[in-house]
């Protein structure tokens, strides 16, 4: 069975909500839409305070090519354009909508019938994807239409669908595959048409045997779509690791892209969103969110309208446990901590995780004992101990020489360190500084 070659760790899977059917969460009273839900320029509001909107009404336009529009997930009245603290921990501008019903834009197809045929041209499909505000649903939120428009000099030969879900606890992609396999396959075929290629590989880790089996039976008659079971190892869902696991190709260090080795990677949730955008004219207004945690009463997978406050999801899962010490948007390895439960669900919210206080507190750091476990764990072949020491000393040159910009911030190093050193904190700091130095150097040229 395939997997990536360098490093990697095996955190406890803790897939508490695996097998729990996707339930639909009730509408919120007020929905909040931050304008930066994606990588790139923030969206620009195209509604004003007091405007009436429907479900699917565009409320903010893309702020450039590398950006994405935002649509209302509820019907109601724009109450204000203000700011909200999102998962980044910063206050970000956002549109607030008071909900007064569930009226949808009339051209959205709300039926469940499977729309198999797609007669649109490549450009029309891309337009629909862009206009629907589809971005990478795995957490990075890279605008999908940008990824589907690779540089002209790169010859793409394979589409890789990321259904790995290697983050512990999260099960939203798993359940999506179990309940919407047909839609996902149509989505894959649409993407193949856009890219003008005829080969797609869906990578799934072996712990999701039911999903592997179902997808295999659904694709056995479809030519060009292969299901590839992968050995369990974190961070297999990392774009570069997945490309290596599936094709054996290694993406060169930044600024190279997956397209440079002929691959385009899309998350399985994104593929589903593409299906809905193209075949049902439905913009990205809802997503599957796993609500989970060791002490959570009812870990579940919820279909949630974007903009719903996190508190409503937690309530549905049985309330926030007494012992909660950390509230995380995403998984435990790469997720971001939330300041409180008022933050809204956004396009990249794959999970809401509540960690007990005992596990939330970091242990005191000790001397590095040079055990080399971080070097063995790093999936990018870096030396985290060295990068962290260089960062502590402000030695940006050493950090750059030792490939710091290749770091994917997966957290393997820090999660294995027996001395409990905050390795990734230091590496992030140095990466930030070195990135600035490189940009300044390139600007001078």
């Amino acid at each position, binding site marked *: 069975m395939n997997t990536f070659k360098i490093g990697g760790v095996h955190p406890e899977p803790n897939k508490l909500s695996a097998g729990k059917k996707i339930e639909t969460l009730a509408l919120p009273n007020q929905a909040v839409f931050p304008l930066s839900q994606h990588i790139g320029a923030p969206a620009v509001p195209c509604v004003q305070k007091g405007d009436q909107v429907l479900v699917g009404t565009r409320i903010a336009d893309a702020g450039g090519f590398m950006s994405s529009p935002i649509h209302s997930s509820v019907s109601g009245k724009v109450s204000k354009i203000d700011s909200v603290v999102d998962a980044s921990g910063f206050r970000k501008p956002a549109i607030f909508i008071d909900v007064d019903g569930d009226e949808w834009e009339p051209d959205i197809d709300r039926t469940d019938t499977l729309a198999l045929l797609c007669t649109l041209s490549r450009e029309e499909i891309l337009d629909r994807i862009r206009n629907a505000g589809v971005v990478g649903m795995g957490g990075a939120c890279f605008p999908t239409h940008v990824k589907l428009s690779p540089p002209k000099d790169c010859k793409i030969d394979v589409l890789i669908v990321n259904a790995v879900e290697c983050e512990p606890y999260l099960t939203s992609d798993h359940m999506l595959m179990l309940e919407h396999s047909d839609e996902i396959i149509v989505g894959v075929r649409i993407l193949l048409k856009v890219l003008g290629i005829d080969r797609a590989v869906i990578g799934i880790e072996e712990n999701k045997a039911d999903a592997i089996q179902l997808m295999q039976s659904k694709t056995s008659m479809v030519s060009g779509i292969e299901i590839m079971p992968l050995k369990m190892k974190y961070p297999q869902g990392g774009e570069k690791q997945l490309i290596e696991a599936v094709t054996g190709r*290694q993406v060169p260090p930044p600024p*190279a892209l997956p397209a440079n080795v002929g691959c385009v990677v899309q998350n399985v949730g994104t593929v589903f969103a593409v299906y809905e955008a193209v075949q049902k004219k439905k913009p990205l207004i809802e997503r599957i969110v796993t609500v989970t945690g060791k002490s959570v009463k009812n870990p579940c997978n919820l279909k949630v309208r974007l903009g719903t406050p996190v508190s409503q999801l937690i309530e549905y899962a049985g309330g926030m446990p007494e012992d909660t010490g950390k509230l995380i948007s995403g998984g435990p*390895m790469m*997720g971001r901590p939330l300041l409180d439960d008022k933050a809204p669900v956004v396009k990249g919210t794959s999970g809401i995780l509540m960690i007990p206080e005992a596990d939330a507190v*970091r*242990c005191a750091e000790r001397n590095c004992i040079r055990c*080399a476990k971080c070097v063995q764990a790093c999936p990018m072949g870096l*030396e985290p101990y060295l990068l962290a020491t260089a960062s502590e000393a402000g030695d940006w040159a050493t950090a750059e020489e030792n490939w710091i910009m290749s770091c994917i911030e997966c957290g393997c190093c820090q999660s294995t360190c*027996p001395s409990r050193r905050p390795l*990734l904190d230091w590496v992030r700091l140095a990466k930030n500084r070195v990135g600035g130095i490189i940009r300044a150097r390139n600007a001078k040229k």
Partner: protein
Amino acid sequence: MAQKLFITTSPHVHCGDTIERNMRTVIWALVPAFIASVIVFGAGALIVTATSVASCLFFEWFITRFLLKRPSTLSDGSAIITGILLAFNLPSNIPLYMIVMGALVAIGIGKMVFGGLGNNPFNPALVGRVFLLISFPARMTSWPVPHQMVAYADAVTGATPLNLIGQIAGGNTAAADQLPGLKDLFLGNIGGCLGEVSALALLIGLVILLWRKVITWHIPVTILATVTVFTGIMWLINPVLYVNPLYHLCAGGLMLGAVFMATDYVTSPMTAKGMVWYGIGIGFLTVIIRYFGSYPEGMSFAILIMNAVVPLINNWCKPKRFGEAAK
């Protein structure tokens, strides 16, 4: 929402590994060799080990408490390991005051002057041993013969296999008749330092370390392989002067050094490639000293010399970066 939340960057989970867990496993892995040493040397083994561990603990406590004025680091377990390893590198009839001096040098000069665990360039136990070897060469190179269960200072000493190997290589081929059989050598039914006699017990320790993922195979395997290849070539060239490589593997401190001393986290390289070069260097130097040096055993010097080269190895041997080949 009543709960107060912690805000930290990712990752938010840890595999649970600690310094203490690693050190505890090393101590467990040393137990078979300790049992073997008690079987072979009796009371002497107990006295030397107890004195060494107690002195190492005392000096670490004394130095952190009164000289560095820092919180105690006794609980990390590294001083216990240094104590055991120092004892394992001593003859079982060595006077107590020498052990105490060795412990002071090991902990004080070997480790604490550099800032404690994690900062020392040389293996502390070996610093202590080599200090004693140079200061008291006569006491450090006469070893009791096995099975004198209650003897300590009055134990009868005799030639060890390594002495004999050295004599043979020096031209005294008659010494070959006194060499013990390979089985005795493998089980530990021979004279020597406490912990080094039983290759079998040390190999059990190696299996424990590998199984609990405390170390990787790179260092011990490359050392043993290098020694086998080097002494094998010499043996093929002249089997009268140079003994069978199996004798080299089981005799002296080679096995103890390869499994427990060279694999010390702090003083060994950080990458797999570096570990391989380090192992080759130790194996090569050990054999050179065994054949041509004035001391019968070369393991401790070989490890200390390679310890000094580790920073260079870390500079030269980088891991294979992701995407490097494609660059």
